[in-house]
C-alpha cells in the first residue's frame, strides 16, 4: 500500500515537472518566436490547416496551467498524511513553491512569475475573505467583538510603532551597518509588518483545533486589523513622500481621522452590499440556477467598491459575508446554498494554495535578495517579541472585563499565532522604489518574516498546543438537547439580567435579536423562509434529514425496496400535508403512554441509527446484486425525467408538482388498499412491481448458478409477499431485526425459501410491544408500531388475531406459486 502511494506520488511529481517544463519552454519559445510570427502571418498565402498560435492563448493558458500545477501540488501534499500531520500544509506549499521557483529560475534565469500586488489583492484575496465572512460564526464573533477590536486596533498600532521605532533605534545604534532608511521609512516598514494575516491564520489554525474563543480572537483580529494596516500604510507612505519636515499636527490628525473613515466606511460598504444581496436573493426564485452567482458577484463588488473609495476592502467584504449569511441561506433554495458553500470553499482553498505557492516562488529571485543580517534578525526578533508583549498587555486589561478570562496558555497561543503572510508581502511589493532606497531589503526581510512565521511557527504550533494542553475545540455531535439547552441558557441569562436590572451583554443581544426578528428578517427574508427560520428547528431538520438518509441506506442494504419507495414518497406527502395528517395520527396515538405520539417523525426518524455494521454483516454478494437490480427496476421513475436535461436554466429533474402528487397518490392508494385488504383478507392490488419483476427476471445474467437464481426468485417473491405487510404501515420491516419470532424479510429472502414468513401481521400481533434490540431510535419505533397496531386493532381486532393462526397472507395473483 505504501509502495503504491509512493509510486503514485512519483508519477505525479514527474507529471508536474513535465507540465511545468513544457509550459516554460513553450513560453520562452514564444518569446523568441514572437517577432518572427508576425512576419510569417503576413507572408502566408493559403489557408493554413493547423497553426500553432501560442501567443494567442498565452495569458489564459499560463494562468490555467498555474492553477493546475498548484492544485496538483496540493494533491501530492495532501496524499501524504504523515507529513501533513507534522508540517502544516501552508508550509509545504511554500516549499513546493521554492522548488517550482528553482525550476523556473533554472529555465529562464530570471524570475518570470512572482506574486504581484494586483493579482494578489484583486484576484486571490477577495474570495478567501468572502469565505471567511460567509462562514463566520456570528454569535461567537460578535460576543467577542470588543476584545477582537482592541487587539486589531491597539495591538496593530502597537506592533507597527514598536517594531518601527526599535529598528530605527538599532539603526541609530549602528546594528545594521550602512543602510539608508529613515525613521519614517522604518515606521512604514513596521506598519506593513504589523498585520496578522488572515490567510496564514486560517491555514495554520484550521489544522490545530484550538477552542473556539481562542480561534475567533486570533482570526477576528487578523480580519479586522486590515483597516488599521491599510491606514497606517497609506499614512506613512504619504509621510515618506512628504518628507519629515512637512508633517505637522494637522497631518497627523488627518491620519487619525482617516483611520476611522477607512475602517468604518469599509465596514459600512460591506453591510450595504450584504443587505442588497439579501434583498436580491428574496426575489431570485425564478433564476435559481444563477442565484449562487449573485453572492460572489456582489461580494466582489463590495470589495472593489471599497477599494475604489480607498476604504478598507477586506473589512468591506468581511462584513458583506457576515451580514448576508443568515438571510441568503434562508432565502435561497437549499441546492443553491449548497452550491454557494462548495463554490466558496473551492475558490478560497484554490486561491490560498496559489498564494502560498507563489509566496514560495517569489523567493527564488536574485533581485530581491539583499542580505543584512542585523536588519533581518532584529526584525524577526522585534516582530515576535512585541507581538507577545502587546497581546499579554491587552489581554491583561481585557481580562478585567471578561466573564471568561483568557488564561496564560491562551495568551501564549494568541501571541504565537501572530502569523504574517501574503498581505504583508503584497504591501511590501507596493513600496515605491524611488522613495525607498532599500526596497529589496524590505521585501526580502518581509518574505523571511513570512516564512519564519508560517513555516516555523506553523510547524511548532501543534506541538505547542498539545504541550500546553490548550483547551481544544470540542467536536460535539449535533444534538437536539444541546441546542434546546443553549436556548434555555440564553433566555435565562437575559431574564436574570432583566430582573437584576443590569444592562449587560445578554440584554443587548436580546434587544438586538428582537429587533432583528421583528424588522430585519421581515425585510430581508422571504415570507416562506421566515416561517421556518428557527435554530432549534434547523437542527431538528438536519438531524431528520441525516436519519432519513441513514434509513434509506439501511433499507437499501436489506433490499427492501417497497419500504424504501413507500417511505420516500411518504416523506413527500408529509411535507405537503404534514399538519393535517399529523393531527390524525396524533389523535390515534394520544391514547398511548408517554412516547406514543412520535408517529409523525417515524417516517423521518430523528436520531441516527448505528445499524450499518450489523446489517452489512448479514449480506451476501448475490443479494447485494439483486438489490441493485431491484432498486433500478423499482424506484419510481418520473415521467418527465428527461424533459429538462438540456435546459440550462432548470436543473431539477423531479420537482414537478404533479409528479410528486402522483407519487403520493399512488402510494396512498397502495396503502389504503392494503389497509382494506388487511381488514377483509382481500389480496392486495397489483402495483408497479408487477412488470418490473418481469423486467428483472429477464435481465438476470445467464451465467448465474441455479442457486443464485433460486434465491433471487424467492427474494422476488418474498418481496411481493412482503409488500402486503410493508405497504401496510403497521409493519416496519426493520423494526427489530433481532426479534425472536419475526424472521426478518431480508433473511427470509435468502435463507428460507419457503416464503412463509409474511411477518407483518403475525409478528406484530404476536409481539406488539416487544422492543428487542433497542437502539437510539427504538422507543420511537415501538411507539409507532403500537400506534399502528392500535389502528388495526381498532378497526379489526379479530381479524388480526385470526391472522395469527392463519397461513401466510395470500400472495398476489401475478406472483408464481413457488413453495
Amino acid at each position, binding site marked *: 500500500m505504501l509502495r503504491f502511494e509512493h509510486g503514485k506520488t512519483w508519477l505525479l511529481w514527474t507529471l508536474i515537472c513535465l507540465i511545468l517544463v513544457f509550459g516554460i519552454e513553450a513560453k520562452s519559445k514564444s518569446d523568441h518566436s514572437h517577432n518572427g510570427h508576425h512576419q510569417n502571418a503576413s507572408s502566408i498565402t493559403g489557408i493554413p490547416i493547423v497553426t500553432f498560435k501560442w501567443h494567442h492563448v498565452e495569458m489564459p493558458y499560463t494562468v490555467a496551467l498555474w492553477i493546475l500545477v498548484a492544485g496538483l501540488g496540493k494533491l501530492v501534499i495532501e496524499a501524504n498524511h504523515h507529513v501533513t500531520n507534522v508540517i502544516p500544509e501552508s508550509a509545504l506549499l511554500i516549499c513546493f513553491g521554492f522548488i517550482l521557483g528553482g525550476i523556473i529560475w533554472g529555465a529562464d534565469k530570471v524570475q518570470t512569475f512572482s506574486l504581484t500586488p494586483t493579482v494578489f489583492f484583486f484576484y486571490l484575496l477577495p474570495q478567501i475573505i468572502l469565505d471567511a465572512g460567509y462562514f463566520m460564526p456570528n454569535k461567537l464573533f460578535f460576543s467577542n467583538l470588543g476584545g477582537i477590536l482592541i487587539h486589531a486596533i491597539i495591538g496593530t498600532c502597537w506592533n507597527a510603532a514598536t517594531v518601527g521605532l526599535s529598528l530605527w533605534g538599532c539603526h541609530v545604534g549602528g546594528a545594521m551597518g550602512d543602510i539608508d532608511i529613515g525613521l519614517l521609512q522604518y515606521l512604514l516598514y513596521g506598519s506593513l509588518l504589523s498585520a496578522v494575516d488572515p490567510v496564514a491564520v486560517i491555514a495554520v489554525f484550521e489544522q490545530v483545533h484550538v477552542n473556539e474563543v481562542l480561534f475567533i480572537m486570533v482570526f477576528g483580529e487578523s480580519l479586522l486589523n486590515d483597516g488599521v494596516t491599510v491606514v497606517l500604510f497609506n499614512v506613512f507612505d504619504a509621510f515618506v513622500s512628504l518628507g519629515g519636515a512637512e508633517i505637522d499636527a494637522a497631518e497627523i490628525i488627518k491620519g487619525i481621522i482617516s483611520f476611522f473613515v477607512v475602517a468604518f466606511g469599509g465596514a459600512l460598504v460591506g453591510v450595504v452590499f450584504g443587505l442588497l444581496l439579501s434583498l436580491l436573493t428574496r426575489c431570485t426564485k425564478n433564476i435559481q440556477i444563477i442565484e449562487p452567482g449573485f453572492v460572489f458577484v456582489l461580494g466582489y463588488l463590495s470589495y472593489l467598491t471599497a477599494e475604489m473609495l480607498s476604504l478598507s476592502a477586506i473589512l468591506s467584504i468581511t462584513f458583506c459575508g457576515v451580514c448576508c449569511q443568515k438571510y441568503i441561506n434562508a432565502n435561497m433554495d437549499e441546492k443553491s446554498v449548497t452550491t454557494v458553500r462548495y463554490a466558496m470553499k473551492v475558490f478560497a482553498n484554490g486561491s490560498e494554495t496559489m498564494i502560498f505557492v507563489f509566496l514560495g516562488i517569489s523567493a527564488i529571485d536574485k533581485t530581491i535578495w539583499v542580505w543584512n543580517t542585523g536588519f533581518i534578525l532584529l526584525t524577526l526578533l522585534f516582530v515576535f517579541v512585541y507581538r507577545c508583549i502587546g497581546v499579554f498587555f491587552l489581554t491583561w486589561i481585557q481580562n478585567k472585563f471578561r*466573564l*471568561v*478570562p483568557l488564561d496564560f496558555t491562551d495568551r501564549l497561543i494568541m501571541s504565537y499565532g501572530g502569523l504574517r503572510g501574503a498581505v504583508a508581502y503584497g504591501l511590501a511589493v507596493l513600496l515605491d522604489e524611488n522613495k525607498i532606497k532599500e526596497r529589496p531589503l524590505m521585501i526580502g526581510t518581509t518574505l523571511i518574516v513570512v516564512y519564519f512565521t508560517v513555516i516555523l511557527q506553523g510547524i511548532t504550533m501543534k506541538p505547542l498546543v498539545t504541550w500546553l494542553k490548550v483547551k481544544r475545540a470540542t467536536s460535539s455531535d449535533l*444534538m*437536539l*438537547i*444541546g441546542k*434546546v*439547552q*443553549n436556548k*434555555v*441558557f440564553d*433566555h*435565562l*441569562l*437575559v*431574564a*436574570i439580567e*432583566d*430582573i*437584576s*436590572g*443590569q*444592562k*449587560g*451583554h*445578554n*440584554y443587548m443581544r436580546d434587544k438586538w435579536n*428582537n429587533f432583528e*426578528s421583528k424588522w430585519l428578517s421581515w425585510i430581508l427574508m422571504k415570507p416562506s423562509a*421566515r*416561517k*421556518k*427560520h*428557527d435554530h*432549534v*428547528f434547523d437542527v*431538528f431538520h438536519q*438531524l431528520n434529514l441525516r436519519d432519513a438518509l441513514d434509513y434509506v441506506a439501511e433499507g437499501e442494504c436489506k433490499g427492501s425496496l417497497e419500504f424504501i419507495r413507500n417511505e420516500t414518497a411518504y416523506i413527500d406527502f408529509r411535507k405537503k400535508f404534514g*399538519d393535517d395528517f*399529523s393531527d390524525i395520527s*396524533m389523535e390515534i396515538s394520544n391514547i398511548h403512554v*408517554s*412516547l406514543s*405520539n*412520535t408517529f*409523525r*417523525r417515524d417516517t423521518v426518524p*430523528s*436520531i441516527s441509527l448505528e445499524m450499518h455494521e450489523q446489517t452489512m454483516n448479514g449480506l451476501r454478494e448475490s443479494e447485494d446484486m439483486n438489490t441493485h437490480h431491484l432498486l433500478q427496476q423499482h424506484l419510481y421513475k418520473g415521467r418527465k425525467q428527461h424533459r429538462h436535461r438540456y435546459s440550462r436554466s432548470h436543473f431539477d429533474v423531479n420537482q414537478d408538482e404533479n409528479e410528486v402528487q402522483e407519487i403520493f397518490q399512488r402510494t396512498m392508494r397502495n396503502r389504503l388498499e392494503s389497509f382494506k385488504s388487511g381488514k377483509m383478507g382481500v389480496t392486495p392490488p397489483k402495483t408497479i412491481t408487477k412488470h418490473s419483476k418481469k423486467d428483472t427476471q429477464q435481465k438476470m445474467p445467464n451465467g448465474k448458478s441455479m442457486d443464485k437464481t433460486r434465491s433471487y426468485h424467492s427474494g422476488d417473491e418474498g418481496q411481493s409477499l412482503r409488500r402486503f405487510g410493508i405497504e401496510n404501515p403497521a409493519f416496519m420491516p426493520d423494526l427489530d431485526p433481532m426479534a425472536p419470532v419475526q424472521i426478518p424479510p431480508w433473511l427470509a429472502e435468502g435463507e428460507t425459501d419457503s416464503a412463509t414468513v409474511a411477518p407483518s401481521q403475525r409478528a406484530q400481533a404476536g409481539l406488539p*410491544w416487544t*422492543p*428487542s434490540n*433497542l*437502539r*437510539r*431510535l*427504538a*422507543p*420511537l419505533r415501538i411507539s409507532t408500531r403500537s400506534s399502528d397496531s392500535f389502528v388495526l386493532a381498532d378497526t379489526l381486532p379479530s381479524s388480526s388475531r385470526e391472522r395469527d393462526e392463519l397461513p401466510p397472507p395470500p400472495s398476489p395473483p401475478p406472483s408464481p406459486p413457488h413453495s
Partner: protein
Amino acid sequence: MGALQSIPGHPEYSDLSDKTGFSFEQISVLHKRFKQLSHNEDTLHRDDLSAIPDLSCNPIRAQIIEAFFDQRNFSPSEEGTVEEIRFEEFLVVMSHFRPPRHSMSEEQRESVRKDKLRFLFNMHDTDNDGTITLQEYRHVVEELLSRSGALGKETAKSIADAAMLEVASISVGHMEPDEFYEGITFEHFLKLLSGFDIEHKMSIRFLNVDTTLCK
C-alpha cells in the same frame, strides 16, 4: 474591609456576602433593585417580577419567575414554593449566576457546576418529583419555540420528543424490552450536560455600579 466602610449602615451585608459570595457593591446594587421591584416592601411577589417590562417577551419567563419562589433554590432541605421572598432569598437565587472565580480547585469547580445544574434542573422539574418528565420538557420546548410563532405545537412536540429520545439513548443507552424512559433524573442531567461549559454559560457579570436606568 474597605468596601464595608464605604457602605455604612448595612452591617447585614457582611453575612449576605459570606453566604452568597457577592461583593458589598454588588449586594448594594441588587438591594436597590430589589426595593425598586418590590416597591419598597420587604418582600417580593410573583407579580412584581412579571411586571418587569423587559421580561414580558421572554418565552420562558414563567419558569424563571417560578424559580425565584422555589424553595429548593434557597433552602435545599425544603420543597415547595412560597408566595413571597425576602432580599436574602432573592440574593441566593441570584448567586447561582455568579461567574466562577478564576482560581478554583477542581472540586470547587465541580461543586459550582453542580450547583448551577441543580438550579437548571429545578427549573425544568416543575412538579418537584426529581425527574423531568416528557411533559415537563415538552412544555419548555414549546414555550421556547413559541416566540418564533410560525412553528406549531406539533413541531415543538416532536422536537421535544426527539430530544427526549436523545436523552434516553445517552443516559440509559441500552433499554430492556418493556422499559419506559420515564424522565430525566438529576444524575442523567449531569451526564447529559457534561460536555457543556456550564460554569461560564450560566453566568452573568454582576456589575459593581448601578446601571439601572430611571424608569
